[in-house]
């Protein structure tokens, strides 16, 4: 299981342009890091690079000595701007598919349903959910299939104040259980976290 995340002088380029270079970070179990930076600085790109979807231009990502492919396959969740939910399917169908896909079992799905209060929405099609409800459905994956490393891309944005607090508590609990969180945000995270600012080093345009 992943118990550390290290970025070692990482650099990423998109469309022929270097977004950032020499980015280093080290997180151990129980730590969170808020990733900040202007729009277009490369936060999303960095998260995708950690997940292995985007290649690094230079540097390396490490998962505490684990084999990166295996660590990524079973050890991390990426919740991005795009949630991969199909508008025409019901909440129940989407939750159960994605949870099973990520390795969750029925008990964990029930727990996630409880924690994110999805019960009343189960038979609604995703297209009918409000923005905050839909985000809750996307976040339910985190609990339905427990994995140590959470990569979150602006997770709080369509949530109301109450849910921000509740999700803050969930993040706290995850850290307490030995998890790691790397979250791209524009507002401060509701938990104690390091900060890593992209573009501050002057690599961005």
């Amino acid at each position, binding site marked *: 299981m992943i118990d550390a995340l290290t970025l070692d002088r990482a650099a990423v380029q998109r469309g022929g342009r270097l977004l950032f270079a020499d980015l280093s970070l080290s997180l151990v179990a129980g730590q969170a890091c808020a990733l900040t930076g202007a729009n277009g600085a490369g936060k999303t790109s960095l998260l*995708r690079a950690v*997940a*292995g*979807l*985007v*290649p690094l231009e230079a540097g390396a990502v490490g998962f505490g000595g684990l084999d990166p492919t*295996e660590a*990524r*396959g*079973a050890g*991390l969740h*990426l919740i*991005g*701007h*795009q*949630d*991969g*939910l*199909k508008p*025409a*399917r019901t909440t129940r*169908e989407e939750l*159960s*598919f*994605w949870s*099973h*896909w*990520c*390795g969750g079992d029925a008990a964990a799905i029930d727990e996630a349903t409880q924690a994110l209060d999805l019960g009343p929405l189960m038979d609604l099609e995703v297209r009918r959910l409000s923005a905050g409800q839909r985000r809750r459905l996307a976040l339910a994956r985190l609990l339905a299939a427990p994995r140590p490393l959470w990569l979150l891309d602006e997770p709080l944005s369509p949530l109301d104040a109450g849910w921000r607090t509740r999700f803050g508590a969930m993040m706290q609990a995850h850290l307490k259980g030995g998890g790691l969180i790397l979250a791209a945000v524009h507002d401060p995270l509701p938990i104690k976290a390091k900060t890593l600012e992209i573009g501050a080093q002057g690599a961005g345009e």
Partner: protein
Amino acid sequence: MSRLGTLLARETALAWGRGGGPLVSVGFYAGVATLLPLAIGPEPARLAAIAPGAAWVALALASLLSLDRLFERDFEDGALDHLALSPVPLELTCAVKCLGQWLATGAPLALAAPIAAIGLGAKLDMTPLILACALIGGLAFAFTGGIGAALSLGARRGGLLTAVIVLPLFVPPVIFGGGALAAFAGGLPWPGGFILLAAYAAAAVALGPLAMAAACRNALS
């Protein structure tokens, strides 16, 4: 593996929901069977002669036109990211996606093909061959089509590109299958074409997923 099972169920349901399923295929062949006689005149001899060929062409056409549903939506809405991020190798995932597409569209079309052909007057003894060709051919179309669909992800004019890539890949199975059907109808030895078709389909099923996974990784990165 239960993960692949749920994935197969999802893919089949999605493909079934948008332009797949038994009703569409029945409707599709009902359309072919209705339209063809209406369009070319109801003389039974003429109809019977072209029936198996028409069913075969219709299958290829339906496969061609439903390809853009295979990867593009999942790519654009982010689902492909999550599918790629899994202990399941992406090759297997792609194969299951193609299989789901085939189950939801190719297989019902294949099952309906002999009925349509017989409705148009094909001889009864052609049924097994039409069915076998349609089932195996559908598999070949799904797996070669998937390559085109994956390669054109992220390209401007995706649909166009898919067609350009896929058309040449569709030609051999179409010729093999059409040849077998024509030979059978003409009382000539047909196994040659059929075996070639099966070999092509086997190659597509074995090698297609490698190409698809590479293309998907490339599009995501």
